[in-house]
């Protein structure tokens, strides 16, 4: 590795020091001095004193200095063949360095200039952070220069700016990974930051270049287009308004080149841009409009200064609602475009023009001959699905269209797009985006936004995040907040105290509703804690559990309790009774499109990804239905009928089953503990073909619920009574049941096969009916406590039993 010297006395170093001395205010002062000297000189001359000549003559010195500063010093280029570090250091740093700079001095300087400010704001790398990196016992400036030079070459930068030096200062620190991880960054991010800074500088430089848009007489050779102006959207005007900032595309440059190639050749003058929504088709149109307007030198002359108009089917149909009107209007518009000779028509969402259902008009018959003849330049945009539909319906049409596929952007492309677009969003919303926000926008939109493709969904999320800024700064936290509020989900690590307490005391809170079943409660609580501490596998659901056991032991109740305690209410539970999916064709209903069946599993999870999914009585579902669910259980992904990926990665999936319930009761009655026969029982389920092993293997945990004992049912009675008292609270009446009566209720309702299920019925008969009578008869007034004794319960239940006994033979 060669040694990189720092020459304090080089020409460039001298000029840099002068550049630093002449800042903007000095420059303004010099301009003022020039004018003052000129005016004073002339006034003195008019007064008859020849000294005025000297003043006028010397007034050029400050003027020349300003010219020099603006022309060379202010943005001093790097040397053509750099050999020493001062050949490439940016002037704002070079001009501030002493003859023998230390690392601390360099750190101070980079923190005070533009590149350093950029990293401070965009990455959160403060001056203090940089200073903390400096170890005064190790002043190896040479190592820093080497690191910076490497980055300078790696990033193709024009000079070594403060951003490069900050990155170099950090990367040479032995613990840089640990330090950067606090900022959710790594070294690659810093390299990206340097490139981002360079790109912004390049955009500023490009903005200063003169724009040549054709001038006053540009359109004199082309026709008037009043109808197009009325019904279409002039994309060229939009591009002009933005001063050609759309000219370059961060992605899809190839598609743009293909369009220009097709339109400049002699073939059919049409293009179909096919790709999902959000992929950037409109952006390609704007870039095309911009490029044609600001005619590149390599642009074919037959395309220069052509204008792009976008036609929207919906607004056309709205403008011509009468029967046959649209069939008259559209040819007029297209004829006008053809006659004008400088128009490229873009049919945005072109499928709308070919759908025979819209307003009972068939525009396809009008468009097809125009597309076939290829005389008018046409661009159609649509998604793959619609293109396939049109191709199937009208193969001839598909045969004459030049299809260009527009694929979703990659992560690197999306980041470049975000870096560029963020400037516009910042300007519109008066905010500043941190780099971490951009990364988070990509990551979260990729995971949670399903109706748009990249980069559209990341841009959309970033726009949303602008509304959740803190002091005008949009961090990764703002992006998380935006998606949490938009989709009503929780994605970050639990940070609020009350949420942490809920998670830590999850078992106790669930046990307020669920009696016993300690292991089941624990596994779901653990899964949720793992998720909210950020230590779970992000590519799977929060947890997948199969609850096995007889009816009435709390399987469904546990799912409900979980939804209530943590997910924000029982309505956060997506419940599917799998006995409704017993046929092979029912698998289709699970994954139906939300627009056709809002109750399909995929549609409900799309609307509410953060939820408890309860698949009740899973053993009753058809094998094909279970096969459909395999990927959901394994990877947390289920594709709907439209092949859209629906994420279950923020859901807890609970399947319940009564399969083998008798065997469980039998084992328990024989005195086995659940853990003793668990493995044997699951083997039995597989052997008896009740479940396939590959299905059972997909679950994180298979939890067996044991039948409730009479003592546990007493607690169930208590829980039911708590519910009754909650209902009565509105009427300021409460009810209490004596110990004897509670025991009697349990004895009467106890059935090991049915668990707690009969208890609610018994309480309803014995307690709720008594309370209802007392309230209606006026015996119970506001503030009174109704006590129900053993005698009352016995009387009611025996009367009811007798009545049922008598009624039995009559039926």
């Amino acid at each position: 590795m060669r040694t990189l010297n720092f020459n304090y006395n080089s020409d460039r170093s001298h000029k840099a020091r002068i550049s630093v001395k002449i800042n903007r205010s000095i420059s303004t002062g010099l301009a003022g001095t020039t004018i003052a000297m000129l005016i004073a000189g002339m006034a003195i001359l008019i007064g008859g004193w020849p000294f005025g000549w000297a003043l006028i003559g010397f007034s050029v010195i400050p003027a020349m200095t300003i010219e020099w500063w603006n022309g060379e010093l202010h943005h001093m280029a790097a040397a053509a063949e750099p050999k020493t570090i001062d050949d490439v250091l940016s002037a704002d740093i070079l001009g501030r360095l002493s003859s023998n700079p230390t690392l601390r001095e360099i750190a101070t300087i980079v923190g005070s200039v533009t590149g350093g400010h950029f990293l401070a704001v965009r990455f959160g790398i403060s001056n203090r952070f940089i200073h903390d990196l400096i170890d005064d016992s190790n002043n190896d400036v040479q190592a820093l220069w080497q690191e910076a030079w490497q980055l300078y070459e790696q990033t193709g930068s024009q000079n070594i700016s403060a951003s490069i030096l900050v990155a170099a200062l950090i990367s040479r620190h032995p613990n840089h990974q640990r330090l950067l991880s606090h900022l959710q960054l790594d070294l690659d991010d810093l390299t990206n930051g340097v490139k981002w800074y360079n790109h912004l500088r390049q955009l500023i430089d490009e903005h200063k270049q003169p724009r040549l848009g054709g001038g006053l007489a540009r359109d004199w050779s082309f026709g008037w287009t009043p109808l197009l102006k009325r019904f279409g959207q002039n994309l060229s005007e939009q591009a002009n308004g933005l001063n050609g900032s759309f000219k370059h595309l961060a992605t899809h440059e190839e598609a743009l080149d293909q369009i220009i190639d097709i339109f400049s050749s002699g073939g059919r003058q049409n293009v179909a841009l096919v790709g999902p929504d959000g992929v950037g088709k409109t952006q390609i149109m704007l870039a095309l409009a911009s490029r044609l307007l600001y005619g590149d030198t390599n642009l074919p002359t037959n395309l220069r200064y052509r204008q792009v108009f976008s036609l929207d089917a919906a607004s056309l149909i709205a403008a011509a609602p009468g029967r046959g009107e649209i069939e008259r209007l559209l040819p007029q518009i297209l004829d006008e475009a053809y006659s004008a000779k400088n128009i490229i028509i873009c049919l945005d969402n072109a499928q709308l023009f070919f759908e025979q259902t819209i307003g009972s008009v068939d525009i396809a018959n009008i468009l097809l001959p125009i597309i076939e003849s290829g005389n008018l330049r046409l661009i159609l945009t649509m998604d793959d699905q619609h293109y396939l539909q049109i191709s199937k319906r009208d193969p001839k049409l598909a045969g004459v269209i030049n299809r260009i596929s527009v694929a979703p952007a990659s992560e690197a492309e999306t980041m470049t797009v975000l870096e560029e677009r963020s400037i516009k969003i910042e300007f519109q919303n008066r905010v500043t985006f941190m780099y971490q926000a951009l990364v988070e926008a990509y990551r979260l939109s990729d995971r949670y936004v399903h109706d748009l493709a990249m980069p559209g969904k990341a841009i959309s999320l970033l726009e949303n995040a602008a509304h959740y800024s803190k002091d005008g700064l949009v961090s990764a936290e703002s992006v998380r907040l935006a998606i949490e509020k938009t989709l009503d989900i929780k994605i970050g690590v639990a940070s609020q105290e009350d949420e942490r307490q809920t998670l830590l005391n999850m078992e106790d809170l669930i046990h307020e509703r669920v009696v016993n079943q300690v292991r089941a409660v624990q596994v779901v609580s653990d899964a949720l804690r793992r998720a909210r501490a950020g230590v779970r596998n992000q590519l799977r659901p929060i947890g997948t559990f199969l609850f096995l056991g007889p009816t009435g032991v709390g399987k469904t109740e546990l799912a409900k309790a979980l939804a209530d305690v943590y997910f924000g209410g029982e309505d956060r539970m997506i419940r599917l009774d799998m006995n409704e999916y017993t046929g092979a064709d029912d698998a289709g209903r699970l994954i139906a499109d939300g627009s056709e069946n809002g109750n399909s599993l995929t549609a409900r999870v799309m609307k509410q990804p953060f939820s408890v999914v309860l698949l009740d009585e899973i053993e009753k579902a058809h094998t094909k239905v279970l096969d459909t669910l395999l990927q959901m259980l394994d990877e947390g992904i289920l594709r709907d009928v439209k092949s859209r990926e629906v994420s279950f990665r923020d859901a807890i999936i609970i399947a319940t089953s009564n399969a083998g319930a008798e065997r469980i009761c039998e084992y328990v009655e024989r005195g086995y503990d659940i853990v003793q026969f668990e493995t044997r029982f699951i083997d039995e389920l597989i052997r008896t073909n009740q479940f396939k092993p590959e299905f059972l293997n997909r679950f994180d945990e298979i939890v067996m619920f044991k039948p409730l004992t009479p003592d546990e049912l007493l607690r169930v009675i208590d829980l039911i009574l708590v519910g009754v008292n909650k209902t009565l609270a509105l009427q300021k009446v409460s009810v209490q049941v004596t110990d004897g009566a509670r025991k009697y209720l349990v004895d009467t309702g106890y059935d090991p096969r049915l668990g707690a299920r009969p208890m609610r019925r018994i309480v309803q008969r014995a307690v709720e009916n008594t309370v209802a009578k007392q309230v209606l008869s006026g015996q119970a007034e506001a503030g009174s406590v109704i006590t129900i004794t053993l005698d009352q319960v016995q009387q009611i239940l025996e009367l009811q039993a007798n009545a049922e006994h008598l009624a039995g033979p009559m039926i």
Partner: protein
Amino acid sequence: MVYYNVSGYNSGMFLVGILSWWYGNGWVERLRIINDRLRVTTDRFSVFQLITTLFAPYRQIAAGRVEGSIEDKIRAFWDRSFSRLVGFVVRSAMIVIGSFVLLAQIIFGAVTLVFWLFIPLMPTMGLILMVLGWTPA
């Protein structure tokens, strides 16, 4: 020459730096600025566009192909010719105006470039005129 240093600033280097830039890259930069201005003006008056489309029908009025009787075609021919005439007159006028503006800009640019070379001599010239003692009447 007397040199003095103020925080690494050297007056000799200042003088050498500014003069070498002024008669080197500075002059070239000035030439580029003038060239850019001329390009913008040429574009604003669409001079090349106007020359290449001098006889094209103005705004495509009556420019389309007409199917019909011979009378219709003759009428369309005259209409088209009139449209071309209007286009020619309007474009020629714009070319003349544009050319004047361009010419004025070229002259101004050339003067600037020559004047640029003499600017550093102005302090000396000012001193000479002061010593000569001449003042405008």
